[in-house]
């Protein structure tokens, strides 16, 4: 890291992490359901890695809800046409069936983006068809894989506006589009729509640049949307990408995350639920809490640096089992008005690491960015 970048990051950290500022106390992490075994036995290696934070997989969101309710989260299905890949189809069907079977039922389903793998009409329509299994109201936000073949045309026809808001039982919900504001990397290089999509669909690619962002117009819309909302009442924001800087080489961020934080700063109970990272993730910046959800398609390893210290890593998965390390999210609110979120990770007794050897970074690695996508004809100017 350059000295300048290091200085900037320290400065941003000081501004955003004011001493004593955290999400409101009513937003508690619950250990009701899953207490990490290492806390019980005091395993030194795990305690060292995961610091002081309670090891959990349930999260209380808000207890200002007016009545108990549930909702479900599914994201990152990355569907190919059925004729090419049936595994991703099978997993999406399973998630939809399980979400539909929630008891008591979910009031609504959030689909958190990347329904399709390469943005094809066939893939988007397949996803829509599978999710018909869920009878509750469904809300969709786009992922970059849904967008960059036809620049969101088909997605818009099927799902409408990519950003939206609604109130439900005392909570204001906001869906944001973090994918459609990428800088134009294709026109000057005369890329076909398929080439544009291909570069966007490569997580470690360098051609698309820092594509993820919220954009000034949407920030202004969010500010206006929140202006009539009591600053102490709960707000839940759904995005595809996390709203903070998390390993930009893989675009696990939005580039204008500082502006997002500024808009949200006055609100004391803000929870951001996001997809895109295909992994368990938890972070706090000021009064904003962020929770990363599982993909149904495949899990991603943690990057070599930048994992928030507050994250308890998910367990290292078995690449031979297509159902390992993936799943969906179930949210429920109990009779006392305290909702919990539970990671539904298929085939796993434990969602979180139980010892150092369970962590995918048990073997330490130093990585360098790829080279071949910067060769002719796609070299950056």
């Amino acid at each position, binding site marked *: 890291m350059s000295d300048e970048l290091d200085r900037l990051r320290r400065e941003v950290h000081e501004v955003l992490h004011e001493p004593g500022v955290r999400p409101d106390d009513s937003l508690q992490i619950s250990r009701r359901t899953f207490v990490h075994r290492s806390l019980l036995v005091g395993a030194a290696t795990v305690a060292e890695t995961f610091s002081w934070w309670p090891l959990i997989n349930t999260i209380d969101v808000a207890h200002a809800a007016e009545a108990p309710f549930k909702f479900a989260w599914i994201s990152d299905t990355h569907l190919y046409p059925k004729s090419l890949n049936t595994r991703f189809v099978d997993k999406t069907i399973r998630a939809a069936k399980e979400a539909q079977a929630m008891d008591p039922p979910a009031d609504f389903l959030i689909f958190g983006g990347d329904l399709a793998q390469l943005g094809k009409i066939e893939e988007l329509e397949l996803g829509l068809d599978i999710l018909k299994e869920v009878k509750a109201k469904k809300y969709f936000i786009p992922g970059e894989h849904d967008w960059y073949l036809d620049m969101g045309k088909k997605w818009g026809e099927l799902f409408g506006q990519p950003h939206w808001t609604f109130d439900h039982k005392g909570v204001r919900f906001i869906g944001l589009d973090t994918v459609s504001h990428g800088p134009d990397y294709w026109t000057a290089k005369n890329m076909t729509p398929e080439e544009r999509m291909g570069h966007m669909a490569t997580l470690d690619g360098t051609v698309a640049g820092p594509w993820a962002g919220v954009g000034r117009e949407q920030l202004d819309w969010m500010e206006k949307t929140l202006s009539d909302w009591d600053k102490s009442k709960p707000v839940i924001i759904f995005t595809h990408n996390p709203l903070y800087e998390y390993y930009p080489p893989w675009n696990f961020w939005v580039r204008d995350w500082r502006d997002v934080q500024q808009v949200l700063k006055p609100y004391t109970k803000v929870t951001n639920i996001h997809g895109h990272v295909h992994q368990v993730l938890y972070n706090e910046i000021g009064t904003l809490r962020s929770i990363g959800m599982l993909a149904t398609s495949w899990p991603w390893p943690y990057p*070599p640096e930048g994992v928030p210290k507050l994250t308890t890593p998910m367990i290292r998965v078995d*690449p031979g089992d297509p159902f390992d390390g993936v799943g969906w999210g179930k949210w429920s609110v109990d009779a006392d008005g305290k909702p919990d979120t539970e990671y539904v990770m298929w085939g796993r007794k434990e969602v979180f690491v139980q010892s150092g050897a369970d962590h995918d970074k048990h073997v330490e*690695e130093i990585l*360098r960015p790829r080279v071949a996508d910067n060769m002719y004809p796609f070299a950056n100017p």
Partner: protein
Amino acid sequence: MTNKATFLRSLAFVAPFAAVVLIGGPSGAHKDPVTPKQLKAYQSAFMEEVKKGDLLFHGDGATEKQMGVTLSTTGMACAMCHPMTSDTHPQSFPKFQAQMGKFATLRDMINWCIEKPNQGEKIDTDSEAMKALEAYIYWSNTGSVLVPGKY
């Protein structure tokens, strides 16, 4: 005769020969020091393999066709689970690989990934494609510490 005198006499005998070797070099010497041009050529040969491996690893159909391999039939590419080759851990091979239930090399593991998650066709362990994949994976992990055998 003292030891010192013996040593001096031996030195007087050996010194002329040593001088010839030092000035003229060994009688059969024919190798030159490596030149910057040679180093560049060696590095270039290596990076060509790295680039080919990068393209294969990222599912480039044209490169697969050119090299006569089918690394996937599901649309999946190696990089989809291993961005920047993360979690390939080449530095930990050879080792007992739990998924295979046997002692394995990196090349064994590459083939396992091609056959299982990618549902592609196993490649010859000494093939050009295998060498290119290996070159890219090792290059990407440059600087990682060797920990052979680590789970």
